[in-house]
């Protein structure tokens, strides 16, 4: 007979809002008074995951800090589409310095805030640094690692769209294997990125044993907000790596941005987890397991795998990577729960 969990809210926390939940249990994005930190009028492509991810994350950080937030931004799409003279879409104190130094600029901001506070000249303002995968995993990696190592009071957010999109979709060290970019073609036998290269910065961040490292996607808003909020409640260096599909670079339909992020997570391609002081503390389990093909097929950057004779072996290698993630992070679908 009826053995239902009493707490059942139709869409639970899957949707952005839910009128059935108590207001304090609702998402930041559902709030009519959300900051819209990255406001309308920006010049991101239609359906840009990075624009979405940035608003999600920064609004959450604004909410968590009572709007006492400053952001440092690396060069990249996010910066270019948000602040072309004479207009900015940012509603928060924001600075763009260079491609590779966002983490260090943020360190400087945090230091200034600390002194000002110490002197009684300023309040408890918090700092976020943000950049694309290129600005994070490649050119900005030195500054990022330095910031981690010093355990500066900065939350660094990487918006990973798997390549240098702003310069026209070139390979970065976050470009996944077999994905084709403008600069993967010359290397290796296939047009896609070579297997076995690249780096997964969340794991490297964990190796710094900083207080908090997490991954998230634009498909799981509540998880993303939870992580940003949690991160803002912690002092010291924190890192959140958000998967943000890029319709332009991935060759996906503009309306599929969130779906692609969801597929990345559900196939195990992109593990969603959080770690404290170098140890994984929780994972977002797969809810509806799917083969990687479901994720690969809609993307033109993998189109070369699905020609007349599909690259079965390559797809199998990608599947093996996903399976490895599933094993390593224990992402197996769990029964029930919402």
């Amino acid at each position: 007979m009826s053995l239902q969990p009493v707490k059942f809210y139709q869409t639970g926390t899957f949707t952005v809002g839910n009128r059935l939940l108590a207001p304090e249990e609702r998402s930041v994005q559902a709030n009519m008074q959300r900051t819209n930190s990255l406001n309308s009028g920006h010049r991101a492509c239609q359906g840009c995951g990075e624009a979405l991810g940035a608003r999600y994350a920064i609004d959450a950080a604004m909410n968590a800090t009572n709007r006492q937030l400053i952001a440092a931004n690396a060069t990249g799409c996010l910066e270019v589409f948000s602040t072309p003279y004479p207009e900015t879409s940012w509603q928060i104190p924001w600075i763009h310095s260079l491609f590779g130094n966002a983490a260090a600029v943020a360190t400087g901001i945090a230091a200034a805030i600390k002194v000002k506070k110490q002197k009684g000249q300023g309040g408890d303002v918090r700092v976020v640094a943000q950049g694309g995968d290129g600005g994070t995993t490649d050119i900005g990696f030195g500054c990022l690692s330095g910031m981690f190592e010093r355990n500066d009071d900065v939350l660094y957010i990487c918006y990973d769209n798997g390549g240098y999109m702003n310069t026209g979709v070139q390979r970065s060290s976050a470009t996944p294997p077999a994905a084709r970019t403008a600069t993967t073609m010359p290397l290796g036998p296939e047009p896609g990125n070579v297997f076995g290269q690249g780096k997964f910065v969340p794991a490297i961040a964990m190796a710094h044993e900083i207080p908090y490292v997490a991954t998230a996607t634009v498909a799981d808003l509540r998880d993303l907000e939870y992580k940003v909020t949690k991160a803002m409640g912690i002092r010291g260096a924190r890192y959140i790596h958000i998967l943000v599909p890029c319709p332009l670079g991935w060759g996906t339909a503009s309306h599929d941005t969130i779906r692609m992020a969801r597929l990345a997570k559900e196939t195990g391609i992109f593990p969603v987890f959080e770690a404290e002081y170098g140890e994984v503390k929780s994972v977002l389990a797969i809810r509806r397991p799917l083969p990687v093909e479901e994720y690969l097929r809609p993307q033109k950057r993998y189109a070369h795998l699905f020609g007349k004779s599909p690259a079965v072996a390559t797809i199998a290698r990608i599947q093996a990577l996903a399976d490895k993630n599933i094993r390593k992070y224990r992402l197996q679908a769990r029964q029930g729960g919402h």
Partner: protein
Amino acid sequence: MDKPFAITLKPGSSLANHTGSWRTTRPEYVDRLPPCNAACPAGENIQGWLFHAESGDYEKAWHALVENNPLPAIMGRVCYHPCEGGCNRQHMDSAVGINSVERFLGDEANKHGWKFAPAAAASGRRVLVIGSGPAGLSAAYHLTRMGHKAVIYEEAPLAGGMMRFGIPKYRLPREVLDTEIQRLLDFGVELHLETKVTDVQQTMKDGFDAVFLGVGAHIAKRAYIPAGDANKVLDAVSVLRGMEDHDAPLLGRRVVVYGGGNTAIDVARTAKRLGAEESIIVYRRTRDKMPAHDFEVEEALQEGISIKWLSTITEAGMGERGDDIMVEKMALDENGFPQPTGEFERMEADSVVLALGQDADLSLLENVPGLVVDKGMIEIDAGMMTGHPGVFAGGDMAGNERTVTVAVGHGKKAARAIDAWLRGEKYAPLPKPELATFDRMNPWYYSDAPKTMRPVLDIIRRQSTFEEVLGGLDETNALFEARRCMSCGNCFECDNCYGVCPDNAVIKLGPGKRFQFNYDYCKGCGICATECPCGAIRIVAEEN
């Protein structure tokens, strides 16, 4: 701040950049027709009332429900819920238990004595309603809502039609029936019992501007079965009607019911409850061909009713005591029709109850010019009007689908048509919006939640008493069940569009007010439409 030129900018100034000009397609909010609503013969706005039930506002939900159907407590018991058959949730786990929530709401209303919302101002027009079955009650209710005076003439001593004299109490307790009928009377419906109409045209002269016929179909169909005297051969309608009398019908130890509809099942189950040791249904086809609903067959089998498939009764009143019957085995031909096999079997039977369907008694319509009767059924147009102007009809007498729900739907539709007719207009139903099919939705967003089972009365009590078999949901369960609704095709304010737009181009208008697109900034990416769980956004090509 004395900002340096060009490198330092004023916050939020990009609002000056109207990115809406990039758009080649635009999102639009739509209300699509939920499949449950589409499937409900009473035309209930199920998604609409579940919306209120989801938030625990049962009174509002009930009010939304009774806008279309004044009998939720009854309906929540006897309706065969075709809505659930349409429910999109079945593609995920199982259909929403719409019917059980409806019953819960009906019971809540009865418990708390909720009243209908006030009717429209009196129009001064009077409409005669013949018959107080669901068709008549529904027509009378809707006419009253619209401000007309509805007067029911009912032949029987009690109102309810087949709901009282057909459907057994273990499925529809009479208090429930009485309460809902009383609410209608309190609302202003005038009821005259034991008032048989024998000549419509004559009765109309009592100052009625129009008439609605809802006389049902009460004349049992008989099959020719050669029978001796000793054998009791009865018909199902009389047996069930007899249940409402002081003395219950005497059916004996071994009862054979002939037929395969729900009525057959009801009689067989009633016989069991009356003390029959054996209650056997004889049906000429197979189980999957049986018109009775599967869940009723299932319940009957659980209660110990046995069913003889592929069998016909060829003779009754046989043997010394005259209580044997002869049954012939049938076989299905390639078209699925039963054909005699010539194989016979003798069975003992204290009584044989024929449950072979009913015909309508249309004698009161003799002499009405323009009426067309075809195969015992009165013909009506799309606006429920018969061939005679001002004479409308619905329910069992006017349709092949004979259920309480269809009757209620007919009553409503007829009331609207009568209302139009009284104003000298022709009733034109609103065009139906496109269907909210499952492929237009994004089911990802719904929490996993299997259907809540209604508590079922335990077997022993079911075999001996007329207590209600199916229980109702309690508040928690009802809420749970309501929340399983996916609000197909209709915004339920999940805030997804508001959240997922990378361009903040969705304006949230506040609770109950839904959303608006800000086309100044919408780039037409379509994410909102793709991520709308219920499919309430469509993308259309931008003109020029």
